[in-house]
């Protein structure tokens, strides 16, 4: 196996194991830490595909900002493992069966198509570099870029308005 294939399978196994532990952990802080491991594994996949800009943005935005925000909220609420509410055992089993059925349906439908054996350009290519993505973003997608700044402004104002104490 080449080093690329070895890295692919290693990162995939790490991402899947950490995702299952996110769902299965009793302590919410453990779930957050496993989700950070998932984000780092997905960043590794981006680097394998040479999507450099997205890899760095993934680390900074998702693992660096969003997960820290989650940690703040969980620490403020002082959640621990004993006070964790659990669903009825049959409902948990039904949820697992539903997710498993969806997985089987999607995988069987998507992996038997004619294009399923198309090769992915890994390790090289200059489409994911910052320069090329920046040119595409500011030439073709300037309007969504500016509107996303308005979106952030509205999200900030909304979060502050929701969080105010009455009176």
């Amino acid at each position, binding site marked *: 196996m080449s080093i690329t*294939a070895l890295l*692919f399978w290693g990162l995939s196994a790490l*991402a*899947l194991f950490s*995702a*299952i532990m*996110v*769902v299965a952990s009793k302590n*919410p802080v453990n*779930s957050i830490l496993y*989700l950070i491991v*998932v984000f780092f594994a*997905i960043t590794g*996949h981006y680097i394998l*595909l*040479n*999507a450099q*800009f997205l890899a760095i*943005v*993934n680390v900074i*935005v*998702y693992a660096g*900002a*969003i997960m820290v*925000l*989650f940690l703040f*909220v969980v620490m403020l609420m002082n*959640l621990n493992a004993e006070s964790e*509410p*659990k*669903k009825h055992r049959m409902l948990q089993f*039904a*949820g*697992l069966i*539903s*997710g*498993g059925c969806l*997985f089987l349906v*999607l*995988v069987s439908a998507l*992996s038997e198509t004619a294009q*399923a*054996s*198309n*090769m*992915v350009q*890994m390790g090289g*290519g200059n*489409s*994911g570099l910052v320069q090329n*993505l920046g040119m*595409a*973003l500011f030439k*073709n997608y300037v309007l969504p870029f500016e509107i*996303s700044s308005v*979106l*952030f402004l509205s*999200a900030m104002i909304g*979060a502050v308005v929701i*969080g105010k104490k009455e009176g």
Partner: protein
Amino acid sequence: MEIKWYIGLAVALFCTGIVGVLTRRNSIIIFMCIELMLNSVNLLLVAFSKMHAASALVQSNPNVVSDAQIFVFFIMVVAAAEVSVGLAIIVMLYRNTHSVDVNFLNRLKN
């Protein structure tokens, strides 16, 4: 590495997120599983952009490779905004009811 392995990995992560949303009662864990689903879709979009880069489609439309990666960028933008507003809502709910249990919110029914 063929595209079907990337499809399998992304679908497995997505279905793990769905099982998490269906199985857990803690609203913060449910929110985190939604972020997991968004990330699996991001990975699949980047893999598809690289698949088109390796194939002959690039000659007819040279934008097709960077379009998907810019879409991923905007998905991350929207996810960041959604997380801030969603966590503000969860904190307000906790302040009023002192619980993050989603079954607790069924009390709004009556």
